[in-house]
């Protein structure tokens, strides 16, 4: 194998599984250490740099970081990364003085931002310090987009949204609420230098079966949630069927329980493992006594005298045939009585206000043709971000798209190449404080994940707006932070210093090291005492060692970053080094461009 290039920031980045898994590359171990030190404001700011809305995401993030957390490969459950983010949000002090200053003197460029959701406001947040003037148009009476209208208040209290969105507005953008854009053509005729479309995927998917239009007791999930959010709906039938298996279905069923639903069932056509809802969204629903009915495929709404009385389903059975193809067959039928049906089977993009002769191309599902790197549409100067760009994803994805769109808008306004973007950088600083002392807590101990306390069941249904989760108690989060393995403190190896004494190999508690003759990767992977069977994880291969010409090999899979290899190394060939990923934002692009200009002069 070729020696591993640890100078490429992506190698160490991948070792930090949570940061690698996070679309916005949040420095998770970094903020967890801040929390451990009681530095909640710093923890919040470190979060905010990459994900802009830590308080919101600390409650409702899709948590792509947690399933990949190293802790789950060594211990049982991942670190409660998401809920620790909420700790930072809950306990921070005034962080506004630490935000990048916004210049009084504007740069003369004007941007129109359509929609005031997470992607749009990320763009505003990134462009503010660069002196852009921005008009933000929101059709609803409040900011937030999907998180305001579709996420129930018992999961995400409105004041949390207000706080994190108001911070951006207060820095000086022109916010136009209740202002829906009816025509992009008209907007383009105004004197904006660039336009961002961040209008999400606002259209709930329809399930057109017999009986659909014979009653008014069938609702589209996201529209229904929006009506509940804005107090247009405050009651529901007693027997409610939610059709669908995603997170929207979970929000619909739990909302139904709070509006008077007595018998609430979530009906999904497939098996449990095929459901899109996250475990942590399904579990509270089951805890609140929602029935989960699997393998029921809807066939017909049963309406008698204009009144919905039930739904007919095919009961399905799924199997995998010899060729590995999934097979389904109907085994029976069932009628489930109900008085209300809520459809939560997905959502779609919808742009009735974008004229099709402007030069913006769409595919057959109304998804615009957007460049996956620059987020520019086929019309120069019009950018898309968030669910509007590539269809429904999640909040943290929308934030990252916002960051990227902001870079593009800045470059577009400055007539720079949109594709010529700064790469990721990194900083590597030793974590050594003394012979056996490190600047992080390196002692591993098995410890179960701490459960976040919730309000008692009987209190939950009295008020639809009361938040169910209370957030961690100090006694809990102070233990939970210790579960983090500090994967960003990297084991950095210098081959020329190694005397091949084997000390690191012998001390490694997970036996992930070896010194061996260089060979093919598949062969080297088996030479480590605990074989490196997880092919998703890299193995490190050093340069040739000076005394025997063999190579040092490390399997990154189960390393717990305890630093014992470095403590045992007599020549400091191994060192533990704090890795910081440098993610470029619009302001970094501006600084870089300024440097280039200076050089040219």
């Amino acid at each position, binding site marked *: 194998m070729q020696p591993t290039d640890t100078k490429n920031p992506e190698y160490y980045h991948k070792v930090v599984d949570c940061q690698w898994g996070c679309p916005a590359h949040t420095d998770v171990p970094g903020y967890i250490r801040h929390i451990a030190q009681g530095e909640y404001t710093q923890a919040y700011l470190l979060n905010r740099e990459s994900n802009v809305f830590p308080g919101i995401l600390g409650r409702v993030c899709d948590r792509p970081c947690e399933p990949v957390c190293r802790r789950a490969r060594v211990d049982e459950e991942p670190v409660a990364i998401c809920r620790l983010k909420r700790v930072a949000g809950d306990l921070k002090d005034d962080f506004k003085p630490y935000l990048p200053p916004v210049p009084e003197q504007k740069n003369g460029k004007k941007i129109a931002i359509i929609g005031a959701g997470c992607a749009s406001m990320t763009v505003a947040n990134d462009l503010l310090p660069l002196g852009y003037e921005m008009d933000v148009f929101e059709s609803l009476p409040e900011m937030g987009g999907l998180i305001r209208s579709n996420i129930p208040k018992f999961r995400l209290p409105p004041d949390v949204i207000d706080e994190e969105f108001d911070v951006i507005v207060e820095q000086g953008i022109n916010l136009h609420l209740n202002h829906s854009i009816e025509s992009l053509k008209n907007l383009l005729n105004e004197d904006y230098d660039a336009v961002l479309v961040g209008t999400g995927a606002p259209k709930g998917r329809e399930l057109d079966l017999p009986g659909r239009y014979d009653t008014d007791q069938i609702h589209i999930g996201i529209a229904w949630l929006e009506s509940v959010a804005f107090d247009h709906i405050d009651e529901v039938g007693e027997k409610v069927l939610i059709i669908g298996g995603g997170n929207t279905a979970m929000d619909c069923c739990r909302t139904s329980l709070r509006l008077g639903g007595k018998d609430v069932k979530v009906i999904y056509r497939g098996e449990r493992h095929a459901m899109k809802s996250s475990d942590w969204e399904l579990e509270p629903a089951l805890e609140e006594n929602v029935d989960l009915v699997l393998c029921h495929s809807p066939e017909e709404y049963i309406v008698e005298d204009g009144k919905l009385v039930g739904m007919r389903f095919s009961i399905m059975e799924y199997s995998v045939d010899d060729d590995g193809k999934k097979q389904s067959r109907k085994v029976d039928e069932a009628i489930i009585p109900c008085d209300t049906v809520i459809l939560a089977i997905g959502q779609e993009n919808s742009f009735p206000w974008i004229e099709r002769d402007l030069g913006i191309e769409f595919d057959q599902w109304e998804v615009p043709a957007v460049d996956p790197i620059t987020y520019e549409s086929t019309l120069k100067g019009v950018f898309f971000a968030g669910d509007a760009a590539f269809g429904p994803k999640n909040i943290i994805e929308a934030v990252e798209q916002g960051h990227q769109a902001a870079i593009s808008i800045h470059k577009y306004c400055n007539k720079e190449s949109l594709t010529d973007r700064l790469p990721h950088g990194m900083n590597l600083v030793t974590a050594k404080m003394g012979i056996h002392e490190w600047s992080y807590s390196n002692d591993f101990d098995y410890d179960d994940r701490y459960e976040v306390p919730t309000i008692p069941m009987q209190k939950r249904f009295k008020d639809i707006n009361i938040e169910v989760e209370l957030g961690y108690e100090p006694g809990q989060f102070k233990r939970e932070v210790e579960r983090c393995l500090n994967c960003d403190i990297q084991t950095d190896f210098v081959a020329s210093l190694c005397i091949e*004494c084997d000390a690191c190999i012998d001390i490694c508690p997970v036996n992930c090291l070896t010194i061996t003759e260089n060979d093919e990767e598949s062969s080297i992977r088996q030479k480590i*005492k605990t074989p490196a069977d997880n092919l998703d994880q890299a193995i490190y291969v050093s340069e040739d060692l000076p005394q025997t010409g063999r190579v040092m090999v490390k399997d990154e899979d189960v390393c717990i970053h305890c630093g014992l290899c470095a*403590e045992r190394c*007599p020549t400091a060939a191994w060192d533990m080094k704090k890795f910081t990923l440098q993610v470029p934002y619009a302001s970094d692009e501006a600084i870089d461009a300024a440097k280039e200009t200076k050089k040219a002069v």
Partner: protein
Amino acid sequence: MSYIKKPNIALSNAPKNELGMTYTDYEGAMSTLCAGCGHDSITGAIIQTVFDLNILPHRMIKMSGIGCSSKTPAYFANQSHGFNSVHGRMPSVATGANAANKELFCIGVSGDGDTLSIGMGQFSHAIRRNVNMLYIIENNGVYGLTKGQFSASADVGSTAKKGEANKQVPIDPCQVAIALGATFVARSFSGDKDQLVPLLKAGLMHKGFAMVDVISPCVTFNDHEGSTKSYMSTRESKREAVYTDYIAPFNEIEVNYEKGSSIEVDLHDGGRVILRKTDESYSPQSRGDSVKNIRAASEEGELLTGLLYIDESQQDFTDTENMIDEPLNSIDHKTLCPGKKALKNLLDSYR
């Protein structure tokens, strides 16, 4: 030496031996030796050995005397029996333990000082009696615990950390052991587990006294330029005379070695030792030949390693003394200690 305790982590894919034990199960306390000490690496090799041989920890005794080396039994197999004896007196304690229970696997760990200086007499007599044990010398050529004076195994011309050269002739434990009639003599290097582990396995399964002299660099006092027992100089001077493989009786492996260049020796446990010579003229079954070759290599500045001498035909101590097979602790008290009358009868029989 490390500040935190090595965490015990149970990984689902950690290899298990036939007893269902993992490598970690054979580990001991955290080492308090210097970081990079060769002794820790030998500890690693011992753990690998007993893991591979499927030895139940409580069927093993680990013996030592005094010195850096003699601390190491604390660092492996913490579920085994152990005895840390007076300086240089480990062989007599091991002999006693052997006499009391010949079913136990006995590993003695000693150093160059503990063996070749204060313990030279005990070492010689353990060889003479052919006590059934694996006797490991962790040989670094210096007295590490007393700040790096030359030991009895330091080579002439090898320098101390401050530059002073040794003038006294070293004692080579391998030559001494072969001359004294040892039945298993090997030499290896702490930095070469591929060679060391099979030697330890063969030594432990050999019936009789198996001595393995392991060059184990002292990273604090003897790993500098000018030292002949540093990592670098050992790697440069080391020459393998005989490649050794140990094939356990439970491993039915077909071994295909070229005839003529390899020798198979059957051990009493049913296992086999395969010796592959690197030099046709070398015979690891001839005492005279072995000593001659070791001397010749030494004069050339080479360190001859591998299984240098083996003789499976000799009886061990318990056999020559006609001792019973049952461990004494399994014999009831009355038989073991038959009382005053029996003693009187015994003494009378000599009158």
